[in-house]
């Protein structure tokens, strides 16, 4: 299993701010190793989903153009304090990770 990801969710007015930080190399498959000259194979997150209390709020597809150790923030209107936010990702090798937090 991949390294844990950090997630934080807080209310700001009637909107929940969700921020998360994932641990991932995000290799595009285009980069060459500086020493050997060999192409570093693609290894990046392809799908990210987020739910609040079980309802999907975000369904994203990513390419290798997202930076290493990706940061993602989004806002959800109508969420309440204590609601459970879950973020999942899957990468192109089938590796996956999930994290959850209660909105504070």
């Amino acid at each position, binding site marked *: *299993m991949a390294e*844990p990801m950090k997630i934080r969710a807080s209310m700001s007015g009637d*909107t929940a701010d969700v921020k998360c930080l994932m641990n991932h190399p*995000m290799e*595009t498959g*285009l*980069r*060459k190793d500086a020493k050997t000259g060999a192409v570093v194979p693609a290894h990046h997150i*392809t*799908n*990210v*989903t*987020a*739910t*609040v*209390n*079980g*309802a*999907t*709020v*975000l*369904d*994203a*597809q*990513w*390419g*290798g*153009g*997202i*930076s*290493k150790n*990706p*940061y*993602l*923030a*989004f*806002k*959800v*209107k*109508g*969420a309440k304090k204590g609601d*459970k936010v*879950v973020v*999942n990702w*899957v990468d*192109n090798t089938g590796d996956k990770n*999930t*994290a*959850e937090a209660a909105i504070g």
Partner: protein
Amino acid sequence: MNILRRNVLKGAGAASAVSVAMVAGLLKPGTVFAAEWNKAVFESKDLGSVMGSVGGAGAAAGDINVKAPDIAENGAVVPVEITSNIAGTDTIIIIGEKNTQPMLAEFKLSNGAQGYISTRIKMGATSNVRALVKAGGKTYTAAKEVKVTIGGCGG
């Protein structure tokens, strides 16, 4: 502390996945699993074909704010914040116009998610960061130029 925490997280994750599947299954079958990754678009190296396959650029809109630095010293990490004030925004697409693979990310928003995404992208060269926003079946766009002094795509 770490081992315990991981076990707790793992257990909680598995339990929540089940409940998510159940709730989503009841409300909207088929939304449980993310859409298949669109390999053709993400690996395309031609901006024109990427724009075509995401539905064209659409109309320029002042209601979309693309916040990014004027000058990025490190193209590997360029913070980008996209805010759409268009009512009914359901999709935000981020494109790096001069990147080898221009298509960076597509975010589908639902169930109260606001037209706001903040993330960090790689940029190979100075170019526009373009945001495409879909709302009510229409496409809108806005862009912001970012000058890159060191490329982030193996350059």
